[in-house]
């Protein structure tokens, strides 16, 4: 039983990171209708910026905060400069643009920082101690990550559901033309969506580097797939769904792999294919995901 609980806890820990990146993906989708393939690479890039700051003497937490702000600005800038011209155009065009960003940012990260082994944060400012809860070890770091992730989603939920700004963000994504007519500055709403997503992605990247060292340019590649699976599972439109999806996926993957010892299917190599199956199954069976709303349209 403790084994089971331990695996669940471990699954929640890895799942919170998937959830955070999934949250970023959902924010952009919700505010611009676009799935940003470059979300992971952008997170990597900003994490490297944080590393550079620390390398130049800035304290870890200061760098953390500064990076989140920089990421926000970068997201806004990206949307205004690169994405704006093709918004409203065919889906394929925007997909290709974000794929272009994926390739570009990945290349830049490799080029600027190279693939040396670094651990980040250096000197471990994250607490390493663990609590023992009935035989199950829970690390403070994992708890902290989970806590921040939950906090983020609560904030975002409040933003979208209860503030005027959140309503404007939603409206701008759903019907830009009608939004303009009621006075919403659609352009800035879209930019805001990208900025928020980039900031959240930066947090995901920083967590990833802390939880699974080392920091390397390709670290977010698999995480991106897990985040997609989490977002789709939870419902691409639902921030809460992203969290639920992420945690569920983390736990699922861990349990499947652990209990595979009985099945002997060597499933630990198949984490990514399993994530793919999740994506495929959800999209085919219930595209709105667990918490998304199946949209009804009267024709």
């Amino acid at each position, binding site marked *: 039983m403790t084994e089971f609980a331990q695996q669940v806890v471990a699954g929640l820990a890895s799942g919170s990171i998937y959830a955070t990146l999934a949250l970023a993906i959902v924010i952009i989708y919700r505010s611009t209708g676009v799935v940003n393939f470059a979300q992971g690479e952008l997170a990597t890039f900003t994490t490297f910026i944080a590393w550079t700051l620390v390398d130049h003497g800035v304290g870890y937490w200061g760098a953390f905060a500064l990076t989140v702000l920089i990421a926000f600005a970068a997201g806004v800038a990206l949307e205004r400069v690169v994405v704006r011209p093709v918004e409203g155009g065919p889906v394929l065009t925007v997909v290709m643009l974000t794929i272009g960003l994926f390739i570009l940012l990945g290349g830049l990260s490799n080029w600027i920082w190279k693939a040396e082994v670094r651990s980040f944060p250096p000197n471990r400012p994250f607490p390493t101690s663990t609590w023992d809860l009935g035989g199950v070890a829970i690390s403070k770091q994992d708890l902290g990550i989970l806590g921040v992730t939950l906090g983020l989603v609560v904030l975002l939920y409040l933003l979208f559901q209860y503030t*005027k700004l959140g309503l404007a963000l939603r409206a701008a994504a759903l019907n830009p033309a009608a939004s303009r007519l009621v006075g919403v500055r659609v352009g800035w709403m879209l930019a805001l969506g990208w900025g928020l997503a980039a900031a959240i992605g930066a947090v995901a990247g920083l967590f990833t580097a802390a939880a699974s060292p080392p920091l390397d340019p390709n670290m977010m590649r698999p995480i991106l797939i897990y985040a997609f699976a989490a977002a789709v599972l939870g419902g691409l439109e639902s921030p809460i769904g992203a969290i639920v999806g992420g945690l569920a996926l983390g736990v699922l993957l861990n349990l499947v792999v652990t209990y595979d010892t009985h099945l002997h299917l060597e499933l630990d190599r198949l984490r990514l294919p399993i994530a793919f199956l999740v994506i495929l199954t959800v999209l085919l069976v219930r595209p709105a995901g667990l918490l998304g709303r199946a949209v009804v349209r009267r024709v």
Partner: protein
Amino acid sequence: MPLLELDGVDARYGPVQVLHGVSLDVGEGEVVAVLGGNGAGKTTTLRAISGLVAQSGEIRLDGERIGGSAPERVARLGIAHVPEGRGIFGELSVLDNLRLGAYLRRNGFAPGYERVRGYFPWLEERRDQQAGTLSGGEQQMLALARALMARPRLLLLDEPSLGLAPIIVRELFRIVGELNEKEGLTVLVVEQNAKLALRSSSRAYVLEAGRVALEGPSGELAENESVRKAYLGY
């Protein structure tokens, strides 16, 4: 000075010019109709005012030039546009649609909502319903209600009767008339249903191929048989 003036307005969609030197004006407190057949440029006229289409020429609101402004700014200046096809947010609730209508209001949502409920009492019980699941007539009413939430100085109505049953259309125009009489709301309405529009307005313009072919008091236009036959189809 009229509230709204269009002076020699051209408008184009890409390389195609749709309006040729359209001039019209709407006085404060008036209900003015823009009539004409399909493709005459009626909708384009409203879109030019709202900044949704590329245009040249002069458009003035209360003497101030607004031509070429972005739609967000035009809304900010007090013009509420109910577009063709209603332009509601189908995936959002009725309440959220109304909240968006009040987006620009400084004093919040409540005052506008009170007023709108007076004209559309049924909205209250449907407030959580997804707007896309309302019937066509209800959606049109919602669109109008949303426009009113902003307490506009000028209401632009684009083909409100499109696709609606006559009884609903009559009710719609009745409400518009009431808004105009009781609150002095200025209205510019584009309509294919010329008969109804002429009955509900004080003046009218008839567009043909992007130009103003005819203008005058609605009563006169309605009585003039040759005008009716030539331009209005009845």
